[in-house]
């Protein structure tokens, strides 16, 4: 079968060592000289936890049960997404020689940024798992499905990194747009507040309120956060709609990202 997508995937698989080497390079450069390198990946979420606890609990007076675990279940997957996309978006234009001077599947470049973030994410997730019992919610049997959830999110994020890195090649200011998008997306995802708080959201202009509620409930990251919490915090199987959405978002993002990237990457060597 001479399907170009299949050929590209096969080639990506054959050159996986390049991807792994780029990942190692990223991680080693980042953690060089610090034995407790993982400490830096943990510092950000911990500081954020502290700040959001102060603001939401003591300033605003919102009380969420077991807030530290609740927050981390949403924030760690979010950091994975936001770091991946921010690092991957300029990755192709920052590595012109890998595009212009050697032949390799170009998708390796953004995907290696995603995998580097994935490694950090998995490490922080393991630490979270180890910490769970101390917060009175020892992980149940459903925690075994965690690798599957992480895999689905990695594919979803991978699609986004392809999308944004390809568009950054053609439009150099995608970065600014992305920064704004990430802030909006963060607040439209129930990471620091529970989704139940928005069920009765009243905005001055009702149609906008409906849109906001819909986005907070059904945007891809909300769905993923919902699954992470179900698995880690409640030990409950997510409902069918949530699982269906995870599958749709994952496949949709992967397909869009891959096809768009494949279409535009053929000419990267001329425009980078």
């Amino acid at each position, binding site marked *: 079968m001479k399907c170009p997508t299949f050929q590209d995937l096969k080639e990506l698989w054959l050159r996986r060592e390049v991807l792994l080497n780029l990942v190692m390079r990223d991680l*080693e*450069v980042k953690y060089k000289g610090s034995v407790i390198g993982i400490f830096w990946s943990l510092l950000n979420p911990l500081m954020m936890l502290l700040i959001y606890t102060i603001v939401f609990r003591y300033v605003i007076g919102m009380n969420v049960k077991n807030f530290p675990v609740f927050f981390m279940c949403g924030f760690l997957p979010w950091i994975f997404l936001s770091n991946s996309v921010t690092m991957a978006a300029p990755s192709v234009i920052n590595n012109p020689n*890998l595009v212009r001077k*050697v032949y390799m599947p170009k998708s390796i470049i953004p995907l290696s940024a995603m995998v580097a973030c994935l490694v950090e994410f998995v490490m922080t997730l393991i630490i979270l798992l180890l910490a769970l019992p101390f917060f009175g919610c020892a992980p149940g049997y459903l925690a075994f499905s965690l690798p599957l959830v992480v895999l689905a999110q990695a594919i979803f994020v991978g699609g986004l990194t392809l999308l944004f890195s390809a568009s950054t090649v053609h439009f150099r200011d*995608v970065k600014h747009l992305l920064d704004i998008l990430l802030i909006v997306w963060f607040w439209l995802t129930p990471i620091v507040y529970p989704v139940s708080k928005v069920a009765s959201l009243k905005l001055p202009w009702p149609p906008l309120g409906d849109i906001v509620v819909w986005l907070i409930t059904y945007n891809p990251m909300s769905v993923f956060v919902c699954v992470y919490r179900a698995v880690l915090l409640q030990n409950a199987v997510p409902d069918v709609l949530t699982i269906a959405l995870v599958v749709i978002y994952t496949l949709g993002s992967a397909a869009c990202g891959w096809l768009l990237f494949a279409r535009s990457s053929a000419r990267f060597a001329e425009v980078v």
Partner: protein
Amino acid sequence: MSNEGRQRNEPGGSDVIQMRSVSKKYRVYYEKSENIKYLIINLLKGKRDRYRDVWALRDITLSVKAGETLGIIGENGSGKSTLLKLLCRILLADEGHIEVNGKVATLLELGSGFSMELSGRKNIFMNASILGLSRKEARRRLDEIISFSELGDFINAPIKSYSSGMLVRLGFAVAINVEADIFLIDEILAVGDERFQRKCLDRIRAMQRRGKTIALVSHNLEMIQKFCSRAILLSKGRLVADGRPDAVIDEYRRVQRSDAG
């Protein structure tokens, strides 16, 4: 010049590279919406991108047999590098057909993927994988690569502490150890001091003896004459001469004189 390697790689001197009426154009923009902001402004103003198509290569037909060493010469901008990049699929042809049989090693620059913070040893694996050498193969050839680079204990130091000569030696040591059937080499042989250059050229000779196919871009006509079994001359994107190196080099000098005069 008959030896085992040749016979193995050259069953009746079959073509390993075939180009049929290949053309390649570059789009040169005078005005381009390089960001979304300008795209929107230009759309509102009804302005279009302005560009001109420049043909970098025009109607190239060429076949190279296994075991040949092809020298590619021509002035700057005549399309030499474009030709190599088409052969290794970095660029796509706009017209015509290209067929390359065998594993290709692309040596257009030294030290692809080098990271200044990491040791020479780690960079060997990085660079090798990009050039198509697997980790296993790289590990097997590691001693050889390190000794060729003449870096000694420096191999474990971050390469930001290297001199430019040391970087070049490391890059070349990896490149020369890549295993392939066809080598596409762009001007990277003009590196290092004279002694190191000689060492590199010896390795190229060894590749030739093993029946490898080599396409070599260089401005060093003396080297083309000495190394190549055949040469082609490109001028303004067209193939204007093809044959024995000395004849093609004479033609090149004649064209240059007539251009100057």
